[in-house]
């Protein structure tokens, strides 16, 4: 539904080629490990050998030759031993005498001239722990929650309450309960984590890192490093994938590297190899979610009660906010007047879980979209027809009482996806456990429908006030142009390209006049972290407005200096005024740089005053805007081996104004593929030794080019008009719905509902042959 653009030169809405692609296809782009660095030390993290216990000693072996080797322990932390995160409970390094809470918790950092020397030396640090009994898995925590709720250790709890749940169940003709589970998921960015910390003469630090949020370390490490924000400078290196995995964790790495760097006075680099990266960086939170829904004979939902428990790991870090986003998506997509959702973050003795594309929402939607299908089946209704009846649409109120505006394409997404996939006909052909005539394989089609909140929760963006700048500059090639200065990071999603499009259109400049340098906190204002499906919607608006501001300044300057006061307009890369010959932008920009030292446009984001949000009661407008998706999966299952193939995936999506349909399509295809992995193959748990049981690419299996289905992706545009150009979020949403769509398709194929992902052939076998999951 991309509309014809009036202005032929307009770039918004076109599939402009990526500005960073040339360097990436030629291999010339230098990621952190490609940079030639001299005179640096390589750091290795020394870790707790047990999941839980009292740390008795961290001692270098006196017999070992420590010449040239720097060892940093908690004793070397200049300030308070705490990383801020969200509750200030996690130490930077575990301290002797205190409790270590997960296998692999850092206790020391060793740095030496070569990685081999550092690794060898690290093996000569004696780490002594008096073990305590650990609670390792979410399953154990949930068992406690079910048996003795008062003994359940929740690091953070939050409820959402709407209406009167007792009344809702009293009004119901029928009630259905269901529990749904999912394990860890690894981001598996192809470029492992890495940072280099350069200590500066004035005692400050400068860090290069493959990281999403350059301002996080600036504000999270002040207490342990005893450095104010202005003494921590962070610069993004080209990022080889992140998906949330490089959101909060790189702050820890910078903290680890800073200790030997400050102690030795030399730069320290820490990069993980794949095995260490998988074992000791945060994953998607495992979830246990229980729904109890009441409904009338006609299907109307009268009550939704939900318990949503995430495995937070050993420390809260950012899991509270992950849980918040989770519970806000637990019952978002359906009309219901009486809702109770109880969210909790379980403490376990395992590596803290963290950000991963979707941020709690995929776990919630895995539960609700499985459950709604189960309700439909219980009612004897077809899943698509039932969702068309009960789904939320403009004018309806969400579980937090937000009234959906007309800028929500929920109904259109559902309707068009069903049409495009020919769902009704295919649904009738689903095998339902028996091969139909002419079928060689069990066939099923499944649906999921969902909304995804764009940007920070509630009035978070109003409180944060993202800042950005667009400024005149002289490029390395000597030409004048415009630099975009925001802290949004390019991690593959295409922000450098789409912000170039936005700035170019707002300025009416050709894209070659615009650059977007990698974010460096010395040069960019804080436009917030590159997370939460907020970047295009919020920071894109900041860039748009800042560029408009700069445009006015350029026009005013041109009027005065080139057109004798006549009003000038910047249009198609030149300044035009009535009755005068146009002047190229470059000439005016050059003059501005020379005569007034340049110019810069800036903007600070705010939300409309009408936004109301109560962070205590979780009532009000939970997100400024919502993207929507109806997601359909078709599966074929071999009746002998239960091998599962996802053959075709349809997605109709409202992400507001589509800035670049090619990059947006790439986000969707990539997100759907991660969701495919989550659904059917990416299996990871915590072993008895406290370590993840799939710790390398030979055991943690992600989709290859042979596993991906045919995609039919279609955008419908319901722009977020408050923030031109009117985008809503796209980054996370494609991760949300495919797992339940596939589970629903598997149920249609086999007649059995699987309540745990990944859905492996073994799990299907168990379900079909009456294993523990075999509830119809």
């Amino acid at each position, binding site marked *: 539904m991309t509309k014809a653009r009036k202005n032929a030169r307009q770039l918004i809405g076109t599939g402009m080629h990526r500005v960073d692609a040339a360097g990436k296809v*030629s*291999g010339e782009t230098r990621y952190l490990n490609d940079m030639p660095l001299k005179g640096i030390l390589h750091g290795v993290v020394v870790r707790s050998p047990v999941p839980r216990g009292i740390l008795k000693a961290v001692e270098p072996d006196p017999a070992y030759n420590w010449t040239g080797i720097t060892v940093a322990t908690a004793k070397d932390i200049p300030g308070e031993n705490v990383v801020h995160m969200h509750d200030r409970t996690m130490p930077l390094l575990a301290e002797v005498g205190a409790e270590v809470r997960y296998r692999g918790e850092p206790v020391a950092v060793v740095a030496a001239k070569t990685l081999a020397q550092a690794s060898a030396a690290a093996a000569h640090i004696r780490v002594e722990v008096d073990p305590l009994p650990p609670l390792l898995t979410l399953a154990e925590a949930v068992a406690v929650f079910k048996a003795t709720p008062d003994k359940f250790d929740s690091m953070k709890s939050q409820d959402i309450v709407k209406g009167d749940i007792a009344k809702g169940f009293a009004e119901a003709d029928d009630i259905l309960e269901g529990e749904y589970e999912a394990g860890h998921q690894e981001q598996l960015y192809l470029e492992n984590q890495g940072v280099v910390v350069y200590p500066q003469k004035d005692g400050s630090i400068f860090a290069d890192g493959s990281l999403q949020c350059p301002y996080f370390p600036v504000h999270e490490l002040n207490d342990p490093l005893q450095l104010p924000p202005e003494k921590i400078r962070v610069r993004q290196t080209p990022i080889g994938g992140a998906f949330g995995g490089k959101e909060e964790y790189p702050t820890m790495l910078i903290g680890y590297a800073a200790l030997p760097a400050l102690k030795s006075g030399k730069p320290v680099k820490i990069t993980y190899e794949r095995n260490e990266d998988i074992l000791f960086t945060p994953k998607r939170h495992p979830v246990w979610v229980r729904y109890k829904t009441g409904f009338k004979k006609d299907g109307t939902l009268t009550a939704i009660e939900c318990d949503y428990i995430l495995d937070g790991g050993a420390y809260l870090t950012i899991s509270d906010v992950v849980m918040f986003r989770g519970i806000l998506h637990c019952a978002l997509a359906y009309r219901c007047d009486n809702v109770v959702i109880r969210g909790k973050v379980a403490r376990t003795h395992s590596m803290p879980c963290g950000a991963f594309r979707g941020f709690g929402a995929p776990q919630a939607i895995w539960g609700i979209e499985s459950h709604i299908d189960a309700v439909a089946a219980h009612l004897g209704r077809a899943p698509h027809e039932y969702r068309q009846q009960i789904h939320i649409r403009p004018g309806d109120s969400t579980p937090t009482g937000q009234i959906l505006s007309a800028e929500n394409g929920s109904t259109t997404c559902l309707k068009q996806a069903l049409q495009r996939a020919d769902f009704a006909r295919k649904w009738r052909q689903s095998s339902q456990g028996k091969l139909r005539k002419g079928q060689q394989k069990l066939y099923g089609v499944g649906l999921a429908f969902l909304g995804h909140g764009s940007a920070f929760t509630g009035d978070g963006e109003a409180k944060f006030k993202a800042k950005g700048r667009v400024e005149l500059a002289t490029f390395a090639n000597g030409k004048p142009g415009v630099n975009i200065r925001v802290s949004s990071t390019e991690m*593959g999603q295409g922000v450098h390209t789409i912000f170039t499009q936005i700035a170019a259109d707002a300025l009416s400049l050709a894209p070659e006049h615009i650059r977007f340098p990698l974010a460096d906190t010395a040069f960019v204002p804080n436009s917030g972290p590159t997370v939460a499906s907020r970047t295009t919607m919020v920071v894109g608006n900041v860039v748009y407005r800042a560029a408009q501001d700069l445009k006015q300044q350029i026009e005013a300057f041109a009027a005065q200096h080139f057109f004798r006061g006549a009003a000038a307009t910047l249009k198609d890369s030149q300044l035009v005024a009535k009755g005068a010959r146009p002047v190229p932008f470059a000439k005016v920009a050059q003059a501005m740089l020379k005569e007034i030292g340049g110019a810069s446009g800036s903007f600070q984001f705010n939300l409309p005053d009408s936004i109301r949000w109560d962070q205590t009661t979780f009532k009000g407008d939970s997100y400024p805007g919502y993207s929507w998706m109806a997601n359909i999966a078709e599966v074929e299952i071999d009746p002998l081996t239960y091998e599962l193939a996802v053959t075709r995936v349809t997605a109709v999506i409202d992400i507001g104004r589509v800035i670049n349909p090619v*990059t947006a*399509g790439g986000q969707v295809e990539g997100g759907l593929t991660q969701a495919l992995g989550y659904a059917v193959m990416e299996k990871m748990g915590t072993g008895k030794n406290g370590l993840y049981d799939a710790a390398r690419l030979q055991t943690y299996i992600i989709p290859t080019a042979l596993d991906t289905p045919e995609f039919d992706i279609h955008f419908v545009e319901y722009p977020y008009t408050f923030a031109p150009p009117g985008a809503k979020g796209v980054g996370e949403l494609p991760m949300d719905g495919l797992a339940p769509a596939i589970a629903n398709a598997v149920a249609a194929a086999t007649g059995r509902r699987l309540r745990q992902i990944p859905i492996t052939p073994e799990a299907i076998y168990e379900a079909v042959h009456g294993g523990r999951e075999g509830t119809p």
Partner: protein
Amino acid sequence: MSNVTRTWKLNGKSVTVRAPAGRRLLDVLRDDLGLTGSKESCGEGECGACTVLVDDEPMVSCLIPVGQLPNGTEILTIEGIARKAAGRVIQQAYIECGAVQCGFCIPGMVVSSYALLQRNPKPSTRAIRDALAGNLCRCTGYAKIIQAVKLAATRLAKRTR
């Protein structure tokens, strides 16, 4: 481990390296020769980010000890492919199809695509999927990469006609 001396034809030029026999080709390329286009991701031959052509065969350079590569071996890395006409056609197709996101897998992907189109100028979708199955990408879902290989095949076919 004892050092070996080897003379290879690397990206069309004669290169002599001296290194422990067990040193990985990837390390020789990246650290000794400064050819950082080949990436390391898994270090155990699963991901394909370090794929190079060894005597025209795509191989993961993280699993090849240099002692195993005799004198005269022809090695082509992404840096060499970028200088070949067919390589540039493939790279341009990747750019135009939006097949690049974070870019970390892309050098290996381009090398595997080049190898495929050298031996099979008109690959089917299935053949493309097969040829790229050893190169993991976490960003794109492969759809636009497959599209790019098809576009490159079409353009290369026109050139040779």
